[in-house]
């Protein structure tokens, strides 16, 4: 029996349960607002958002794999395309694009024209160092770690800071192959 073909982001997005976009945006805004009140330091909030994203990412990957039915990607280029085209579409309903590949093929940028997290948001002067969507970088990092890739994800462009788009830089640090976990020979 031939394996089932992977489903496109649109098909899956149409079939999963969706939540109201405004509710999602406002809930995320409330979380960031509360974190700022609790932690006060903008750097701390950035770190906390990244950690939260990481915890989401390690669980999200299983849902992604189960619903999209993809087999393992051959190389990092395919991985980045998967994240941008299928992943973002499936979970946020927006499509991103991949550009700026470096010579090795280990570093690229994922560009989002449209970002549902930042609707209605404006950063005040007191929070200029804040990466409002830092949860996304954590999610990508967490998810990729569960498929044996250690990555570093940083924000290059942020519309809340005056740029024209949202750009995430995803850099592959190393691939961690599976090792036999039991050390003793029995």
């Amino acid at each position, binding site marked *: *029996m031939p*394996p*089932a073909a992977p489903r496109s982001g649109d098909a899956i997005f149409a079939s999963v349960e969706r939540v109201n976009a405004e509710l999602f945006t406002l809930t995320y805004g409330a979380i960031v607002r509360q974190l700022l009140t609790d932690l006060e330091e903008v750097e701390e909030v950035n770190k906390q958002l990244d950690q939260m994203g990481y915890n989401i990412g*390690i*669980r999200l*990957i*299983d*849902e992604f*794999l*189960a*619903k999209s*039915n*993809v*087999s*393992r990607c051959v190389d990092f280029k395919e991985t980045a395309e998967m994240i941008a085209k299928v992943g973002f579409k499936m979970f946020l309903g927006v499509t991103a694009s991949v550009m700026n590949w470096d010579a090795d093929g280990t570093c690229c940028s994922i560009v989002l024209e449209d970002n549902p997290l930042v609707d209605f948001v404006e950063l005040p002067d007191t929070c200029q160092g804040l990466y409002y969507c830092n949860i996304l970088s954590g999610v990508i990092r967490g998810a990729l770690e*569960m*498929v*044996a890739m250690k990555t570093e994800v940083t924000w290059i462009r942020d519309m809340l800071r005056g740029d024209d788009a949202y750009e995430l830089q995803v850099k592959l640090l190393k*691939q961690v*192959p*599976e*090792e*036999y*976990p*039991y050390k003793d020979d*029995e």
Partner: protein
Amino acid sequence: MQFFGGSEISPSPPVPTATGNNAHMMYVFNRNGVCLLYREWNRPLHTLNPQQDHKLMFGLLFSLKSLTAKMDPTNAEKGNLGIPQLPGLGCSFHSFRTNTYKLSFMETPSGIKFILVTNPRTGDLRETLKYIYNLYVEYVAKNPLYTPGTLIRCELFNTALDQYVRSIA
């Protein structure tokens, strides 16, 4: 569907189990060898204690995956024996059958391994295992009370799993 009890192969019609379950047992491992779930529906023969049993099962599958990938006659690129492989890379084996049982295996790219041991008459269980992966996602991955990498203690998952396994041919 039919179920073979015991170890003799006879032409007489097989006896259905009391619970109606067609599967013997099920294991779920993560990429670090931790046994996340072990369900037993019908297992008259126990040869090892649980820890040894889990270790043996994980080790067996780890080696089988490695072996099947290295012995692949169609794949041009072959690594040396002993070098660890990325999960899901290369060819992947999905079942083996003996005269008394069939073991079906599925590994996700995230390293979660699903093993289902059933009677030898069972057909291809790849779709079944995919469905069980979906159940895992719904009841375990999305469960905020579950810590990833630890033993699964979700009653809903166990119930859904039992119900589903009972229905497979």
